[in-house]
């Protein structure tokens, strides 16, 4: 499940961690609506629909990282429905001291490993885990490289293409994904295409329930290049490499979460304010404007918006804002809104 999970530990245990990101705009929701009231976001109802339609038959366990109350209670629903051989709600610490939050988090990860061990009997050695960490370090480096190239030459590959390439990594082995990324990067490093007269935007708010691909395309068709975003945030969650040479790789993964996490609506930010980190990103990516796109009824994202928007206002950064759900099918209004936003920046700034 979104947003972040250290997939390295499952890889080291000879497992494959699959990211479940909802049913998107392809899955018709019939039964899922009977499990959720109308004022609850869309993603959990599509996940329930997928479960009831037996799309998860081959899965052994389900891990629900702490994001919000809805995902927390979805873990309870999976427990009540007895889906999979184990269901684990992974409580990420909101205390970032190594001997407090770190100790707790490490124990949480060990609990996951113990569950996997019960299923396949594979012992996770330091050597195996260091190897897996190395593969995921490379994966993040390649994704970051992809984003770097795209922010410099956004006409070479669309944001929707980048999105699909990164998302593929949620369902295939990391070794295979790394090969694909390397090939794409080789391709993107060649000069082709011509820049269009578009503004450079950062899209934020989509950290959990993913926007439909049509919405990403719509933003770019309406006069914007998306050069930074928080789609599929888990793939880039750890900002840098995790140590692969030590004798305590689980400790290294724990420490990386405490020290090297990106910012997100699901993480307590006092002491490390998200608005400052957003500004840093805006400067780094040379952003012309910010698009706040959040799923309807998403408390974490929507409660962040007034804080982030105030900062944008104070710093004179232009922004637009709208809501979506993973199965939004009509983009005309959004296209007009984003088009107007893009025009206003191009014409007046």
């Amino acid at each position, binding site marked *: 499940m979104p947003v972040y999970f250290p997939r390295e530990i499952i890889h080291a245990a000879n497992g494959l961690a699959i990211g479940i990101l909802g049913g998107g705009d392809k899955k018709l929701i019939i039964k899922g609506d009977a499990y959720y009231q109308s004022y609850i976001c869309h993603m959990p109802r599509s996940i329930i629909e997928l479960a009831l339609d037996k799309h998860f038959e081959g899965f052994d366990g389900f891990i629900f990282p702490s994001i*919000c109350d809805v995902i927390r209670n979805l873990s*309870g629903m999976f427990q009540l429905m007895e889906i999979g051989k184990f269901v684990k709600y992974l409580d990420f610490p909101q*205390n970032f001291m190594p001997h*407090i939050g770190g*100790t*707790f988090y490490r124990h949480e990860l060990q609990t996951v490993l113990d569950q996997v061990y019960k299923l396949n009997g594979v012992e996770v050695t330091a050597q195996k885990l260091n190897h897996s960490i190395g593969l995921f370090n490379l994966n993040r480096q390649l994704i970051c490289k992809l984003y770097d190239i795209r922010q410099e030459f956004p006409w070479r590959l669309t944001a929707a293409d980048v999105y699909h390439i990164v998302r593929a990594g949620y369902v295939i082995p990391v070794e295979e994904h790394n090969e694909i990324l390397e090939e794409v990067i080789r391709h993107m490093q060649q000069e082709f295409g011509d820049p269009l007269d578009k503004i450079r935007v950062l899209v934020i708010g989509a950290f959990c329930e993913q926007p439909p691909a049509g919405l990403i395309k719509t933003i770019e068709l309406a006069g914007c290049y998306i050069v930074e975003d928080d789609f599929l945030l888990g793939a880039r969650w750890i900002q840098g490499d995790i140590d692969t040479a030590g004798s305590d790789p689980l400790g290294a993964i724990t420490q990386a979460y405490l020290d090297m996490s990106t910012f997100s609506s699901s993480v*307590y930010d006092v002491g490390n304010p998200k608005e400052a980190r957003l500004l840093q990103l805006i400067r780094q990516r040379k952003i012309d404007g910010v698009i706040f796109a959040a799923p309807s009824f998403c408390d974490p994202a929507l*409660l962040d*918006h007034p804080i982030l928007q105030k900062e944008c206002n104070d710093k004179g950064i232009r922004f637009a804002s709208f809501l979506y759900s993973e199965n939004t099918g009509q983009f005309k209004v959004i296209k007009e809104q984003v088009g107007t936003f893009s025009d206003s920046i191009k014409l007046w700034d």
Partner: protein
Amino acid sequence: MSKEVAKERSMIIQKEMITRQFKELSMAGETGKKVVYTFVPGNISELILSFDMLPVYPEINALQSGMRKKSGGYIRDAEQHGHSEDVCTYVKCDVGMMLSGNIGPTGEKIPKPDLLLLSYTGCFTFMKWFETLERLYPGVPVAMLHTPYQEAHKITPEMTAYMVKQLKEEVIPKMEKVSGNKYDEEKLKSILRNSSKVEDYIVKIFDTTKHRPSPIDAYFAGVYYIGPINSGFRGTPQAVDYYAELYKEILERIDNKLGPITPEGVMEEERFRLVVEGPPNWTHFREFWKLFYDMGAVIVASSYTKVGGVYDMGFRVNPDKPLESLAEYCMNCYTNLNLQQRVDLLSKCITDYHADGFLVNSIKSCNSFSAGQLMIMQKLERKLEIPIGFIESDLVDPRYFSYSNIKNRLESFFQMLEQRKMMNIQS
């Protein structure tokens, strides 16, 4: 609706306690007492009181604003300041109240916080709420106390250790700095001894609904009964006295075979006994209660009265292990229980208190309660074959209270209960 509200002595005592509390708060600037904002679930008020600081509960202020018909305006103000229509209305009400001068329910100004104690227990939005307040009160320190969720149906030693370390190294040092007082464990223990007595009373009081007629309503009146323990009096001698008096009154009612006191008067005939899941609506509280009164429906147990602590499964604070005990108290709050535990607890209430039906008041603003409620209903219906009802409203947003909708649904539910009774008699 204009009839004068009937009141018992305990109600008058509670009103006096709250009036004094808000008076003391309004004078904090002169007395120099430090003010701590915190939440009801996982409210470690004993620790706050042990430092001679004054607690303020933004949720209580929000619900009071709802009852006093002020929340609608506050919510609109917050929305004008960029808050979405989709998010928790407690947060928006609190932000709106602050923008309007932070005037409390008694008409006196509530002082600014000296410390924001983020007891992050059973509700993710609490964290976002205090991130918002931190920006509205720049420079005020925030002490985070992360309460792990009971995902595996139990409290593990690692969970307790995590919380105790946070108390020792995050919360207490900040309280010492803000208050200027050193942590006094003996003082905390003595406060906790009173808490333990109050917890005993709470269990006895809510257990009286086993009687027929039930002498109390465990939802509408229940929210008043849990008032003192959840609003700054936990561990105080006043709370012990209040609960002793309340329990005495209830025992008298049992002796006299009297039903619950309601704002409309004593309920004369108990027709239906219900267990209710979910918080009440505060903006139309009296009208909401009257819908049940008119039908002779008494709530014999409710999950909402356990939101500030679950005591009927045996938990009591242990003064000999003060910090461990505070940690376990937090982890035992209702919304920190997983769905299976909630089903089990509700099932026990339905069985123990001989409920005729189970009703969910699904609150738009509260995902912690609401997400999963439809599955809880399904499980209880299958397990106990009990009639289930479902209504929707909101905490403090008057736009989401539709009287006629709720009335229609309740009437259908009561008809179903009536039919079930007839069928039971016939069989």
